């Protein structure tokens, strides 16, 4: 089923698919260039990583396509030689391959996938995702024009599912090359705060001009907007899809902002919502893929509106910041269905009757969803829960955060720590930790947190099972991480925590530091400090 990009008549001007795709490639390359420049301003290793990701992704896809089409091209070459024995077999094969590759447009998916990944992605992850994207997403379905799903999105989702923790937003240079670390992006900050902006420091212009970290393509929203307009004017992409997608999202965010009591600030709030999380990029480059969206104009409108509603729902209720990718895949699945329903109704006759009905349905859906079900409480305390840890964070003063961590539930509380953490965000160090309260069951953990002051259980007897040989290790831990005679870098805490937040992972890796016989208390403490660091946005 080869989809053409516009309805009949087809004899318009002589413009091949190749020409259109080349213009699209130029646009993508511009976005890529912009992100490279941005990341170079952060650090050379970031910029280099950005370049490498793009190169690896595109090259892998081209190589896979080459290998996939090789048998057929060899056969074609042999056939051509058998018909005209003057031709060189190798040249004919290369000719056939050149034709095939240039009409399969693998590099476009390569660039889009690269722009969907964050800068800290390890290169082998990029490689594997690119292979799966082009193979499972496009080639196995029959090549260009036959695929159901957008291949770049398939690769992105695969990377998310398999390597989710490796998709890091920052790259750090260490002695052994690059090590990646995860941190709070604006998207995840927003999603943790229930998509409300109170209490968070988000500047709209900063967002639009790309001064925050997200995936490679998310940075310059304004640039993508301009490029989108240019492409639409040059008829490279169909204007309906991005306009209706962004428009519906804007409308839904607007209404939910009004209901959340932002008043006139809702307009800016809605603008923030659509500048975050790759919506612009997805709208201009991923949703408009002519192969995977419906052929008819009204079908395209339904497609865009559906994708917007899915994005809205996934973001708000499933707290998955990557709602855009999932909603694109879902609507790609529904494209053949939409086509079949709209079959034959592509003329203007459709508009009055269906337009009115459709408009009413759309409005009611948007209103209902956004006002009725969305939780409008902005938390000024931050509730977090991860595995068996739950914590409540509150900002007490500038750079001072109060956190209560509890590990365990349902009557089996294994550790409890309440402390004030003072951070220095510019130098990225923790300057002071003040332990306010703890479990106080006379366990070794109390000794750890108080530097050996507490050695007795609550009855006043000395511990029955106090492993004295572990005392120096515990005291060293206390001196280094809790007493803080001099400020300690964020990474000291983050490195301990990032090694895994399950008991067995800590026990085997951070043995000397953590396994002092107060495992749960130490875990809770480290977890608490790292959560405060993440909450304050200091993990960049």
């Amino acid at each position, binding site marked *: 089923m080869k989809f053409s990009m516009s309805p009949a008549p087809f004899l318009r001007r002589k413009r091949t698919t190749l020409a259109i795709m080349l213009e699209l490639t130029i646009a993508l390359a511009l976005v890529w260039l912009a992100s490279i420049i941005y990341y170079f301003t952060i650090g050379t290793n970031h910029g280099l990583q950005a370049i490498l990701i793009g190169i690896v992704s595109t090259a892998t896809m081209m190589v896979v396509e080459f290998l996939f089409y090789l048998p057929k091209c060899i056969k074609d070459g042999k056939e051509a030689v058998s018909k005209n024995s003057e031709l060189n077999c190798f040249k004919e094969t290369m000719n056939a391959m050149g034709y095939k590759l240039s009409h399969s447009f693998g590099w476009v998916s390569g660039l889009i996938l690269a722009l969907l990944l964050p800068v800290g992605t390890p290169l*082998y992850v990029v490689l594997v995702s690119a292979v799966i994207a082009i193979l*499972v997403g496009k080639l*196995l379905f029959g090549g260009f024009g036959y695929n159901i799903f957008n291949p770049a999105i398939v690769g992105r989702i*695969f990377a998310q599912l*398999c390597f989710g923790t490796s998709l890091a937003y920052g790259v750090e240079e260490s002695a052994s090359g690059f090590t990646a670390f995860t941190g709070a992006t604006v998207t995840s900050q927003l999603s943790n705060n229930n998509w409300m902006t109170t209490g968070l420091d988000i500047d709209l212009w900063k967002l639009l001009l790309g001064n925050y970290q997200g995936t490679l393509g998310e940075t310059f929203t304004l640039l993508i907007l301009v490029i989108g307009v240019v492409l639409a004017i040059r008829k490279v992409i169909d204007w309906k899809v991005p306009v209706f997608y962004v428009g519906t999202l804007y409308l839904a965010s607007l209404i939910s902002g009004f209901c959340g009591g932002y008043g006139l600030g809702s307009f800016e709030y809605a603008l923030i919502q659509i500048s975050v999380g790759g919506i612009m990029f997805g709208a201009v480059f991923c949703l408009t893929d002519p192969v995977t969206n419906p052929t008819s104009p009204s079908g395209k409108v339904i497609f865009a509106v559906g994708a917007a509603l899915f994005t809205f729902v996934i973001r708000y209720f499933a707290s998955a910041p990557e709602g855009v990718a999932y909603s694109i895949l879902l609507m790609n699945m529904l494209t053949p269905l939409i086509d079949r329903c709209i079959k034959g109704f592509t003329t203007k006759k459709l508009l009055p009757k269906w337009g009115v009905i459709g408009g009413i349905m759309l409005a009611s859906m948007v209103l209902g969803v956004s006002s009725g079900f969305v939780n409008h409480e902005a938390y000024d305390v931050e509730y977090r829960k991860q595995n068996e840890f739950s914590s409540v964070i509150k900002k007490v003063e500038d750079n001072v955060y109060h956190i209560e961590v509890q590990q365990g539930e349902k009557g089996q509380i294994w550790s409890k720590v309440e402390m004030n953490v003072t951070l220095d965000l510019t130098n990225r160090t923790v300057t002071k930790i003040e332990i306010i309260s703890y479990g106080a069951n006379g366990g070794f953990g109390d000794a750890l947190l108080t530097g050996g002051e507490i050695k007795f259980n609550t009855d006043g007897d000395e511990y029955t099972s106090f492993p004295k040989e572990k005392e120096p290790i515990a005291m060293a831990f206390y001196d280094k991480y809790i007493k803080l005679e001099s400020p300690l870098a964020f990474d000291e805490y983050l490195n301990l925590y990032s090694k895994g937040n399950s008991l067995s992972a800590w026990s085997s890796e951070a043995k000397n530091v953590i396994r002092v016989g107060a495992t749960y208390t130490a875990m809770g403490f480290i977890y608490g400090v790292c959560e405060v660091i993440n909450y304050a946005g200091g993990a960049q």
Partner: protein
Amino acid sequence: MDTQKKSKIFLNPLLKENPILVLILGLCPVLGVSETIDKAIGMGMAVILVLFCTNLVISLIRKLVPNEVRIPIYIVIIASFVTMVQMLMNAFTPELAESLGAFIPLITVNCIILGRAEAFASKNSVGDSILDALGNGFGFLIAVFLVAFFREFLATGGWKLSNPFTNSTIFEIRPLADFAIPLFGQNTGAFLTLGIIIGIVTAIRMSSEQRKTLKAKKEVQ
């Protein structure tokens, strides 16, 4: 002439008419036990044993079984043999039985067994049925082993083989453990791997068939 036909009965199900990769029968256990090659080989052995016994018995009594009740009788036979195999596995290979879990009783409803019983054993002699059973059983083993080979490599970066009777490790190598993709240890990976392998096998099969018809055409000319 006769031995050629007999060898064809054994060799066909191995690759050309492999029950899983070509006839696409009985995929459920393949998806379920192909996480490690240990489990795959264990399951394959169990299926071979069951197939052997059922084909033998069914072809022995094929003349005595009345037509109207043959399906219930076959099912009783298959279920009994599967239960016997399960009891034997619980006694002699307890760890393997525990890791295979519910898939051993599920052999009863595996299409391959009832399919071969119905299609072949009930109409052919004992010798032929035994050959057919062994062929299909080993075909199943080859297919499951192939899927497990790739899945375990991608999911854990290596392979581990152990002796089921004594639970001692024969070898364990994990060269690429740092680059493991845990998705392939789960159901998604099972479907993906199986699909890609079936695709490759079909492509090879179709191209070899095309080549044969081309050759035949050329010979005719």
